[in-house]
């Protein structure tokens, strides 16, 4: 009996009995003749019929197919070159490095992989590193960061968030930057050399900046105290993440790209969506309009091999890619647009055909909307 005591209906019952709000007014007065109250608001009443939908199918088809073709062509025009330098294969130059890896070594292992480009890369070239089977989107990993610390908050610098566990405190010193993400920052060094036909190695200038979102670099990530000068003092009392070879204030020599505002760190801190991902590493600026950024020919990729991936069966790649207005190379969008456009067009044709042939057909599928 008590169970029924909570329900709207009973309230209504009371209304009619004791004192409904406005109940009396409604009861004695003739209801207003407003369009709303009489459910007669002027309304547009579209009806889905073959007549209205078929043109839409054709229009969608006619719009999507060109877009798709455009996308596909654009995607195909993007030059992309990819090298797996994990060194799993015994023939790979990096095989030794991948095998002999240990955390404690201070001497870094280097290897270099030669490759050649068949076609010149005309515009700006973007250099990515790619990891596979690396779960940057694991929940424990994603939340293991302290954005307030990275934003330069001095309290958080000294007392990082609990989310950073077990990468929060090392030897009674707060870790800066704390957390699993920062701790596992990608620390291979990749360098690119052009091999002249005469055999000389010309280093290709790689730009370290412009690889992170502008807002991240300038707002979301800030060094403690706001200044980029004298970072050593600012970070005094903190310790470097466990697996880093050097502290955060020695990431770069450029004071605008050091500490928390180091763009490599910022890029790494933006956790990837899928276990196979790529991240922007460097940008190769086009020098002038006459010569291609990367002419065709032979190159070597010099790797300072620091980052271990074999333990979790991962892969490391280096990707060189040009970029179009739609981003990197991805044929998916173009194909999808073409298929959807074609399907629409095809459906339009089929429906038109059916419609003309069996004018008065009524498909009585009893599925209501």
């Amino acid at each position, binding site marked *: 009996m008590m169970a029924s005591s909570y329900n709207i209906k009973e309230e209504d*019952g009371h209304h009619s009995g004791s004192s409904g709000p406005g109940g009396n007014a409604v009861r004695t007065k003739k209801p207003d003749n407003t369009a709303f109250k009489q459910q007669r608001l002027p309304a*547009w009443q579209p009806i889905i019929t073959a007549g209205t939908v078929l043109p839409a199918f054709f229009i969608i088809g006619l719009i999507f197919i060109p877009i798709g073709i455009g996308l596909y062509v654009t995607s195909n025009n993007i030059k992309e070159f990819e090298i797996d330098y994990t060194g799993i294969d015994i023939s790979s130059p990096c095989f030794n490095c991948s095998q002999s890896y240990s955390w404690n070594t201070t001497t870094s292992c280097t290897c270099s992989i030669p490759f050649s480009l068949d076609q010149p890369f005309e515009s700006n070239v973007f250099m990515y590193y790619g990891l596979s089977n690396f779960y940057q989107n694991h929940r424990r990993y994603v939340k293991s960061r302290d954005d307030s610390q990275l934003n330069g908050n001095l309290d958080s610098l000294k007392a990082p968030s609990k989310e950073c566990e077990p990468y929060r405190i090392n030897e009674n010193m707060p870790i800066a930057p704390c957390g699993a993400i920062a701790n596992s920052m990608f620390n291979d060094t990749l360098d690119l050399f052009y091999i002249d036909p005469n055999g000389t190695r010309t280093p290709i200038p790689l730009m370290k900046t412009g690889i992170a979102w502008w807002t991240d670099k300038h707002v*979301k990530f800030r060094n403690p105290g706001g200044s980029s000068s004298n970072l050593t003092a600012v970070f005094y009392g903190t310790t470097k993440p466990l697996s880093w070879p050097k502290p955060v204030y020695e990431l770069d020599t450029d004071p605008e790209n050091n500490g928390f505002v180091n763009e490599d760190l910022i890029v790494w801190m933006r956790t990837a*969506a*899928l276990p196979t991902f790529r991240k922007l590493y460097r940008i190769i600026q086009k020098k002038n309009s006459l010569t291609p950024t990367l002419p065709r020919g032979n190159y070597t990729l010099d790797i300072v091999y620091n980052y271990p991936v074999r333990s979790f069966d991962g892969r490391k790649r280096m990707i060189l890619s040009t970029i179009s207005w739609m981003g990197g190379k991805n044929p998916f969008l173009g194909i*999808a647009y073409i298929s959807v456009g074609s399907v629409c067009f095809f459906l339009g044709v089929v429906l038109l055909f059916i419609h003309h042939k069996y004018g008065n057909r009524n498909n009585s599928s009893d*599925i*209501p909307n």
Partner: protein
Amino acid sequence: MLRRRLNRLFGGDEKRVDSRTIYVGNRPCPATETFIPPKFCDNRIVSSKYTIWNFLPKNLFEQFRRIANFYFLIIFLVQVIVDTPTSPVTSGLPLFFVITVTAIKQGYEDWLRHKADSEVNKYPVRVLEDGQPARKDSEKIKVGDIVEVVEDETFPCDLILLQSSRDDDTCFVTTASLDGESNHKTHYTVPDMEKDLQSLSATIECEQPQPDLYKFVGRMHIYKPEHDPAVRSLGPENLLLKGATLKNTKKIYGVAVYTGMETKMALNYQGKSQKRSAVEKSINAFLLVYLCILISKAVVCTTLKYVWQSQDGQDEPWYNQKTEKEKGTILYVKMFTDFLSFMVLFNFIIPVSMYVTVEMQKFLGSFFITWDRDFFDPEIEEGALVNTSDLNEELGQVEYVFTDKTGTLTQNNMEFIECCIDGFQYTAFSSELDSFCVTDGPVSTFQEKAGREKEELFLRALCLCHTVQVKEAGPDELGGDQVDGPASEPLRPAEQRGFIASSPDEVALVKGAMRYGFTFLGLESKTMKIKNWQNDVEEYELLHVLNFDPVRRRMSVIVRSKSGDTLLFCKGADSSIFPRVRPEEVERIRMHVQRSATEGYRTLCVAYKRLSVDEYAAADAGLREARLALQDREEKLMAVYNQVETAMSLIGATAVEDRLQEEAAQTMEALQGAGMKVWVLTGDKMETAKSTCYACRLFRRSTELLELTVRTLESGGRRREEMLHDLLFDFHRKAVQDAPPARAGVNRSWSSANPEYGFIVDGAALALVMNPSPDTNCSRYRSLFLQICQNCTAVLCCRMAPLQKAQIVKMVKNSKGSPITLSIGDGANDVSMILEAHVGIGVKGKEGRQAVRNSDYAIPKLKHLRKLLLAHGHLYYIRIAHLVQYFFYKNLCFILPQFLYQFFCGCSQQPLYDAAYLTMYNICFTSMPILAYSLLEQQIAIEVLLDNATLYRDIAKNAMLRWGPFLYWTVLAVFQGLIFFFGVKYLFSNPALQDNGQVFGNWSYGTIVFTVLVFTVTLKLALDTRHWTWINHFVIWGSLAFYVVFSFFWGGIIWPFLKQQRLYFVFFNMLSSVSAWLVIILLIVLSLLPDILLGVLRKPRGPHTQQKKPAQSSGGHHQTSDRPLLMRTFSDESNTVM
């Protein structure tokens, strides 16, 4: 609520003591040795549920009794306790929102109740203290206080009338606020009361409080110093009820007997039993399915997580170490918390806001019924009334309509048509006062009149045998009998002036007599005056009134004429009169009665009896004794009545026409066309009811009638039981077995080839079917009976007692397929069936307000039922069904990507969407459009619905909420969820999506999916909307705009209270990427494609496409002319074809 329950509980305890004793004026009485002031509750009315102190705990407690709220509370607690992927805010906030909204609503309602209570409780009253009236608050009145009430005041508690300012020791009250009867009722002071109340020393013994407004038994002991205590019986006529208003009487004194929550008014405000709609049952079924989906998802994910973790290096790679705490927990505990975490992650699949939205939809939607001007009746100046909003959609699901006849199908506006005196027929159309017009009807072949004696006797009987009052001109002209009526009410028709009675039949009869020249002048201090043909005033002393009741179906008066004769006049239904008169008189009248009845008139027979002195003395003694009885008074009175009303002689019969309600026939036709079966349940006699059925076109000429009545049962000359058996099997063979198996659901074709059957059953036969003698096969009869009934187009049940009506409704309600039933009636006798049926409709008729008060919906006229069901019911059903399906759909395709994401993040419970999106999705982004839709949608215009009753069949049997449609929506949701997730996943195979080469992360991924989701889900609704008012436009486009604005806002600021700035500029960056735009557009189009395709393939609902043409022709023409030629011809054609 609790208090009331406690009261009832205590009342139950007190019941052991059958009566309470009240000391008038709270003075001790000489007879009682010790005066113990008895404890009664005070006169405070508490209709409020809460006080300020207990509001919060009590309201929360009541809200969490709801299974859904409780579920979300559990989820919230899990989030607080266990380390879960989403913060407790995500589910806490919606829950808080829901709880708060409900609490505010209930608090506001309770505040109104508090206000109303204190208005009543603080109302100033005058209580007699030491002979002087003293002002007091109403709540201070104690049982036993003598209260003074002046004219037009309402009684503050239940009072026994002690003294009235009127000379005849009566007072008039109206009980309009109690039962809606606006006529003046006469109440009497306790007989032989002394004038000096100050010296009055008396006790009242009366029954414990009980809710029946019309029952009261008590006894008053008056103590006088030098006499023996005098005993007076008290009945309902002495009791003035709280809430009634004093009229035509300057002032009265009464002693309080029941106060506060024990008054009859308070006892009558009880919560009605809750009715649940079929939609709610569907919701619960769907919820169960979703709960299973939820659990299986969680199980799958938990399993996969541990499978994945068992692979080398996946559980704890070097870059993602576990904390000490995680390492420490036992595996099984960890598995269990993981399971809970997944539950929390996916719990949004069960829509928290659906309940709020459904309730809001019902609450707001019901206003459209009250607002509807078509339901406004200028005569009573009232529109429709909605007592519950829970059942709106049930109006669109009705399969059986049970209707009362009198006052519902018919107007209950009686007109005297003809009478028959001693076998001769007279019609009432003669305008001359003194002459009878004898018609030579088929019966009365003789151009002859009955004897003058008989005529006069008949007319006297009509004038005397009733409880009609003559309305007085006004409070200032007390005692001025005015038959011609006061001039102050020019609006009333001339004949209507002056008479007030509880039953319109009586007024019609008195007025009929007036036309024949016998005018009832009024009742004054037990003397009835009538003016006869000679304009002489005859006076009769009214000795006893043997009240009418529906069981006896007759009433009598005992009067003494001037000449000293004691006469008993009795009028009543033929069946109750005929056995009590001399049989040889019956035959002459019976033919008339039957003929009148077949013409649809209500017939009454009039009989009289001359009582000898001894007989009267015996009757008088019996009546007085019975009236004094405290227990079983009713039974005892009944016995005496039956004893007195015997061996009478029949004088004649009257026929009163009860005209059909406006558009009764059209309404019934529409209901039948809509596939509803109409059953007429009436207390009236078979012939009258049958003719009404014909008039309403429930029976047609072609209808073959199957009669199962006392008459057919007795015609064979065999035992009733045998005959019943034979008839039942015979009818069953005819109606059920021989009928072609066209009954495939309610959607059977309305072909005229099938013979139509009408079934007539009366109360006695029904009683035989329902409660047969023990040797017969009871359940067999019932099922046979039910099958016959269900195969007939119309069923007429006549001579029904109120309880039998409910019995029939219950039988149909519980039959196979549990069809939705609707009862409509206007009188107190319909209350039981109104309460029993799924939907109870009250007609605001003339028989008082009881039906209206107990109904779920009240309408002024029967004709309004058509719009209520065909238009409102249909629309509400479509709206709510769509609402429910849509809610499940949008939550499934909301959560499915999140589920799929688990396969790509190591089943780590990583949420795909940001917490803000998780929280706001159901509250803000997608809730308003569906609410607007569910209030405004008219897929088919109201006019079309009214014109095409058959459209109602499209939604019969919960058509839109069956498993088929549910499956369709679920498949659609799964399809869209897959598209959302994998579409974006393929895009993210290269996450460099901006033209500066920068890459997107997991929150961008989620945001893109979410954007596609919000747009698709909203546009899906837009596609389903067939009725775009500006509100729909505003809400749909507004929601989308709000989403965009909110995302900018949410991502535009570093929020200091957030631990992680996950969405910082994510949305902005997403919009700066062309690829993201393109994929969003692509996925939206692709997701909506199947729906559009089905929209084309499906036959449009109803014939509105054709009929709508003129209304929107202008827009349509523009469209066509803009299109290329080929398209134009095609689309023009298609509009007519499809």
